[in-house]
């Protein structure tokens, strides 16, 4: 890696080298039976250079020819992509506990046994198709640049997702367990899935109209995606953010607070620095309904004449860093999940969302198929509804919060509680 920097420097460039390596094993069960075990051992190198205020980028999986990688980056300079920022000098960062050595002892056999155990317990409670995926990953990354930054991170993660499928569909109720190492599924986890599945198994009819809608931690990403897009410095710079000029204004319900929370190393994936070597920090995006901050990487921070917030992350080795909120934390409320359900006279739980990626995302609009749509009447889950859609706009919906669960769960949208909204338009065939 150092040699790459030297070659780039000899050619008159400032440079940054990003190296990542990972080994993962994925065990999957379908219909309570072991289906697949797949592994990946992948590594790669990304090189960014700056010369004459222009930026170049190249990557490879096998660093067999270092000169060629530098030449690819030099070649890409010709396009004239702006590179007005400087690579940072970052050192003396807070040490985070991101790696659990225990993960090295976790065999695929143990993952298989855990999946079997969960299937057996659930099947004693209710008959259904159960699909489970369990994954363990050990990864490392190193980032060095010509300003003297030399950062290293080793991480471990474990994730297990249990899906309980509704008959004749692949709609499922699911929940994820995560950790830095193996974490046995506890009774609460299994009871949440099996009890709520059992209650919602019958197909029932319901009316269309405005009603209460509960987004689970697993489906809240539908709304957070729109917020993330609006709070991105990329949207701000491109003049397509509805939040432009609204820092300090109350935009959402005062119960709603969202933080960038990268330093929480009780969860897997914590980061002290981002993928371009800027220090990560905790800060609010929305606090008690007031919009507080956009998030920035180096490129857009320079464009908008401010500092990076440490949110420059890469989609993979083949991508340059871009502004990204990878560590969302939604502040929990004061109601238990059961209390929230009991408070709903008529409403729908969004168990899964279809089409979250379509619709007018910059505008904050969402229009999703709900699958499964779990129906609540008089405070009790009584079944599931077919062919249901929910639609709205986050600038109205996030102002219509009735209650927030008092506990958060890490899923792909972030570390979130369930949130109950009022007056969401639901269309049911």
């Amino acid at each position, binding site marked *: 890696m150092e040699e790459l920097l030297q070659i780039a420097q000899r050619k008159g460039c400032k440079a940054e080298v990003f190296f990542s390596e990972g080994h993962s094993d994925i065990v999957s069960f379908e219909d309570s039976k072991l289906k697949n075990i797949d592994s990946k051992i992948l590594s790669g190198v990304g090189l960014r250079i700056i010369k004459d205020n222009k930026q170049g980028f190249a990557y490879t999986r*096998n660093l067999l020819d270092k000169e060629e990688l530098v030449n690819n980056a030099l070649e890409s300079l010709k396009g004239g992509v702006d590179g007005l920022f400087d690579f940072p000098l970052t050192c003396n960062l807070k040490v985070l506990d991101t790696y659990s050595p225990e993960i090295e002892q976790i065999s695929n056999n143990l993952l298989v046994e855990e999946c079997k155990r969960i299937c057996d317990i659930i099947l004693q409670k209710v008959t259904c198709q159960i*699909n489970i995926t369990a994954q363990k990953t050990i990864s490392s990354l190193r980032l060095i640049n010509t300003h003297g930054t030399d950062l290293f991170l080793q991480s471990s993660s474990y994730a297990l997702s249990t899906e309980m499928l509704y008959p004749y569909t692949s709609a499922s109720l699911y929940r994820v367990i995560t950790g830095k190492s193996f974490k046995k599924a506890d009774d609460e986890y299994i009871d949440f899935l099996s009890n709520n599945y059992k209650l919602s198994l019958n197909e029932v009819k319901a009316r269309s109209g405005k009603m209460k809608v509960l987004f689970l931690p697993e489906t809240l990403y539908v709304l957070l995606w729109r917020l993330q897009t609006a709070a991105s410095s990329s949207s701000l710079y491109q003049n397509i953010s509805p939040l432009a000029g609204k820092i300090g204004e109350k935009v959402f319900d005062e119960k709603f607070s969202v933080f960038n929370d990268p330093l929480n190393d009780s969860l897997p994936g914590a980061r002290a620095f981002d993928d371009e070597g800027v220090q990560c920090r905790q800060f609010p995006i929305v606090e008690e309904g007031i919009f507080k901050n956009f998030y920035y990487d180096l490129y857009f921070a320079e464009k908008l004449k401010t500092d990076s917030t440490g949110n420059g992350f890469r989609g993979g080795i083949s991508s340059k860093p871009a502004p990204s909120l990878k560590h969302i934390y939604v502040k929990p409320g004061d109601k238990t999940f059961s209390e929230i359900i009991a408070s709903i006279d008529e409403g729908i739980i969004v168990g899964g969302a279809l089409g979250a990626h379509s619709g*007018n995302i910059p505008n904050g609009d969402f229009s999703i198929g709900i699958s499964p749509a779990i129906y609540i009447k008089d405070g009790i889950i009584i079944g599931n509804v077919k062919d249901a859609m929910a639609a709205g706009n986050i600038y109205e919906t996030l102002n219509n919060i009735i209650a927030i669960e008092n506990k958060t769960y890490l899923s792909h949208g972030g570390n979130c509680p369930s949130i109950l909204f009022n007056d969401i338009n639901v269309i049911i065939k």
Partner: protein
Amino acid sequence: MFYRLKQILSRTTARYADIRYEKLKETRIIFNGKELIHVGTNSSDGFVIRVLKNGGLSSIAFTKFDDANKALKTAEQNACLLSINSKKPVEFAKTEIYKDNFSPFLNEDPRNITIDEKLDLLRKYNNIPLSYEKVVTTNIYYNEVIREKFFLSTEGAEIKEDLITTSIGGLITAKEGSLIQNIRVSAGGSTGFSILRNRESEFENRTKILLELLKAEQAKGGIYNVLINQDLAGVFTHEAFGHFSEADLIEDSPSMREKMQIGAMLGTEILNIKDDPTIPGQLGFYKYDDEGVPVRPVNLMKNGVLSGRLHSRRTAAAFHEDITGHCVAEDYRFSPIIRMGNIFVELGDKTLDEMFDSLGNGLYLLDAKGGQTSGENFTFGAQYGYIIKDGKKTKMIRDINISGNLYNTLKNISAIGNDLVFCETGGCGKGQLNIRSCHGGPHVLIKDLVVGGI
């Protein structure tokens, strides 16, 4: 290369093993508004080994040649673990063994075009929407993916095939007051660079539609009779029906297998659906899948009756059905899974005018804006549409998402047009991305669809 791959496989103790090595060369150019934010060409490579041992099938992806022994050992251990824990051993359906070196015909090989020329062309197209005052930004890309695949199996298969995909496309965004609207634009395919030339009118037309969207009405949620255009019909077929034709998605779902039996009457009698990656010139063209099986056309639905499905060697054996050659990987980071290649609704007999007349009152929806399916339920967006009154187009509508249930919807298709079109750019994200996922169809009239709206 085959010699090195043979060396790796020679160490296996499994009954069957295969290895795929891929060199991937990608050229990407991206504009955000007037700003060029990315340009460059890069190469990467890697391996995927699959082993079938004692009835357990496992795979591993790795990027360093030096990791080959460790990878093979890991895959074999995992296969044994699978075998111990499975009641039913995995079998592979028999296939003929091929040795071949296949390069597709290209009308202008993009490797012979300089990056400066690609950049100039993209800049020219990008400037078309940006010349309109209300267009606030664009995200327009050039994407060129060149995959050189080397496949070798212990059965003796030895296949090299190149897949070359070029596309130009992206998103154009306009704003009026606080209303933001965007529209997708795309051009491309598998036939070389020339398909990207002289596409100015595509960018002009899409921009005009976008500006009209700023004045369009928001769709009102409800149940409508809907006429969908060719692009939407293709996405509809892919999302609402096609995924169920992929045998791996229903293999371990007893209730889905019960419903998706060959011979089941699932659609109206006028509905015929086929997957045919062998049609030359369309985006999804290929010769061999990533198990070394030659791909063949499959009639999935004939006159509303389920008549076939897409298979890997594993599922073909499990279902006791013929192999089809549809087991495909995104690239060297993935083991292959069953994918549609080029799925489409076959030609019907109605003209567009006749279909408007049949619709009477309802919605005319055009062009896909993403779709997703979960079992029998699907959702997809339309870029724009019109309210139809008495068979005539009236007001334009925006922000449209459609949702439905597979079984009900296939039975609610009441007319099929005589104007089949295939898409030029695709993309299906079933665990892995398939940029060559092609779909198509003529105009299709569907009764009683749920349309989401505010």
